[in-house]
């Protein structure tokens, strides 16, 4: 796939920069005596910890991320074993982001060690491959290592960055996406997990190339509402933009129902879950919002939105949900078929909360502060153990697939 980069780049240019064994590399950077040795960053071997990251030296022994620590210890007893130091990793992650920001303002960090960059050259901009090489050199100077995928979309760039690890640059030239993806196993496609892969295997679909031959209706039947999107991505089609979070104006989530729904309880449950997602993202970004919007799409594809602005900005589910519910009830009556429901927050205020005199004995006695503390605690648990780790009672009934986030 590696091609000379003297041919001009047609269309979008997306880089996916993925740090190689990031946590372990930081440990080897800070402890030069560990370089060249297997290093495992993770939880306690004696208890039920898991491997967070391991150096490539440790991977040679079969150690992998997310493996139980006890198993890793058996595979590689001589490894240097350290507990994670997230503060230090965040610091170096920031240093890497500074490098990326020098090349383009359009950087979308997706985790502490990964980011997408939009480096679409246009008529005369620098070639994306030259930028990838320059970025990799600068990261090398931090004594860290990254792999970069260069492609025309996020999906392909992400798969490409994983193609030649560590310290690789994989270029998928415009027009060659299908050719690059076709031989890969379906699991390589972001979003396909073990269960989806198993379902596809029953229909004898094992490679991305096979998945790309499905029509949308079949994909929908096999995988559900997300199927058509996956098939598009298998064909190298992924129009998602690089989302730059700087100056976000609104945060919203929407959910497309697989069949039109009419039941009040089902719609309100969906709304509750959308509100929870929006609230969590507001908290993550330290934003509070005053304007809330509910978006509906009826069976005839008419798509009205209703919105309301409240006096006190908030980032709490409990305060947003009643507003959302009121908006929903003003625009929709049970019995009318609904294809899509969305909830958005905008009108961000300086993150400030008016305190209340009668709960001022200590800010922690305040109902609102307690709710805020609870919300942040739940966010932290979910960040660590996954979105499903903690649920509200009302969400227990709720088994929906993850709707994608939207920011504008």
């Amino acid at each position, binding site marked *: 796939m590696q091609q000379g980069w003297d041919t001009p780049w047609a269309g979008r240019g997306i880089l996916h920069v993925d740090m190689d064994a990031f946590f372990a590399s930081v440990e080897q950077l800070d402890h030069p005596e560990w370089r060249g040795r297997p290093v495992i960053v993770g939880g306690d071997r004696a208890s039920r910890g898991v491997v967070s990251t391991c150096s490539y030296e440790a991977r040679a022994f079969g150690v992998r991320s997310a493996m139980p620590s006890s198993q890793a210890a058996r595979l590689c007893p001589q490894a240097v074993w350290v507990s994670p130091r997230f503060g230090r990793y965040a610091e170096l992650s920031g240093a890497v982001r500074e490098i990326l920001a020098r090349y383009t303002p359009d950087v979308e960090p997706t985790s502490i060690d990964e980011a997408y960059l939009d480096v679409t050259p246009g008529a005369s901009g620098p070639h994306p491959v030259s930028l990838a090489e320059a970025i990799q050199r600068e990261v090398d100077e931090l004594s860290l290592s990254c792999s970069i995928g260069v492609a025309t979309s996020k999906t392909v760039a992400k798969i490409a960055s994983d193609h030649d690890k560590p310290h690789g640059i994989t270029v998928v030239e415009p027009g060659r996406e299908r050719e690059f993806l076709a031989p890969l196993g379906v699991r390589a496609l972001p979003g396909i997990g073990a269960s989806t892969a198993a379902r596809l295997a029953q229909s004898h679909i094992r490679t991305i190339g096979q998945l790309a031959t499905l029509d949308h209706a079949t994909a929908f039947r096999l995988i559900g509402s997300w199927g058509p999107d996956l098939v598009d991505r298998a064909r190298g089609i992924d129009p998602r933009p690089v989302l730059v979070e700087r100056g976000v104006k609104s945060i919203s989530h929407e959910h497309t129902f697989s069949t039109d729904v009419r039941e009040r309880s089902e719609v309100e449950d969906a709304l509750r879950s959308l509100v929870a997602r929006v609230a969590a993202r507001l908290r993550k970004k330290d934003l509070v919002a005053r304007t809330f919007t509910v978006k509906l799409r009826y069976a005839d594809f008419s798509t009205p939105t209703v919105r309301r602005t409240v006096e006190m*900005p908030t980032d709490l589910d409990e305060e947003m949900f009643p507003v959302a519910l009121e908006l929903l009830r003003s625009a929709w009556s049970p019995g009318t078929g609904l294809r899509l429901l969305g909830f958005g927050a905008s009108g961000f*205020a*300086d993150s*400030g909360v008016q305190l209340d*005199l009668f709960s001022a004995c200590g*800010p922690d006695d305040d109902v609102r502060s307690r709710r805020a503390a609870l919300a942040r605690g739940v966010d932290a648990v979910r960040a660590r153990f996954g979105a499903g780790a903690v649920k509200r009672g009302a969400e227990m009934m709720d088994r929906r697939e993850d709707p994608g986030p939207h920011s504008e």
Partner: protein
Amino acid sequence: MKFTVARTELLDALSIASKGLSSRTTLPILGGMLVSAEQDSITIQATDLEISIRTGCKANVESAGKIVVPGRLVTDIVRSLPEAAVTIEQQPTGAAVTCGQSSFVVRSLTPDDFPKFPDVTPSVMVSLPTDVFSNVVHQVSKAVSRDETRPVLTGVLVVVEQDSLKMVATDSYRLCVREVSVEGSGGSLEAVVPGRAIEDVSRLALSSERMGLGVSENQVVFTFGETTFVSRRIEGSFPNYRQLLPQGYETRVIIDRLELIDAVKRVSLMAVHNSPIRVKITPDERVVTLTAQTQDIGEAREDLEADAAGSPIEIAFNHAYLADGISVADSDKIAIEVVSPLKPGVIKPAEGDDFIYLLMPVRIG
């Protein structure tokens, strides 16, 4: 029924009574005023069932009687008339209002349907100087809550004790206490009066030098001039505000009130959508810095010279609440006392404790 009265006197009485008109259209009779004429005077009543107002004036009564007229309409008619004698007469088709060459006939309603004026027999009645009462209401009423979910906070706590009048109001974000000395009140009482009613009284009563205030089990009654103003009392106990008042402070600043209010108003221009104003007190440099910023709009900053003592501190307040407190603290120099960025700040006169405006800060994320 027929009477004649000077236009100004009639208009004054109608204007007072119109504060009692209901805006609800479901009970048309509550949009009416009951006008009764007997001997040498007329009385006018209006009620929205929360408050009831009875007022009146001298009149040349030709024949006694009662009639209910549409309140706002008749008030507007009388306001538009030239300064002359106005005659109101009951006719088969309604009430005729004539003045000079102008005449109106308005449809009237049956007096029998009009609610009976509440029969209030106050256990105590005190007498207060009206201007003092009105000033105190003006100072505390900004802090009255508009949130009907906590009814007791939509009222003003009024306490008369021997020679002092005290009012307290809070919307749970700020709390305002004002105490003044009054002479010859003639008794003691305590009641929570609906904010709207007490504000109306404070404006309507100003033409009389003194006013009476009495309470019964369920009602509060105000009397001034020819007027009796009855409001329901708000049930429930008013929060114990004394325990909210901080016992001391970490930082105290004495500052010129008018300079501060002007600065707060300027900086507030950049505190849009409820963004707070940050108040930074640096005692060593004798400076108070106000800043405000709103995402996508801009920012403002102003330094003020001030006498400050204690630790440097930065605390953020809702700009409107801050401006309210400073604008009603009527002394040339005011003190601002703060304990911590999460504890209530106090605005009071540089000297004395007879005015306290307690304001909860905004916690900045």
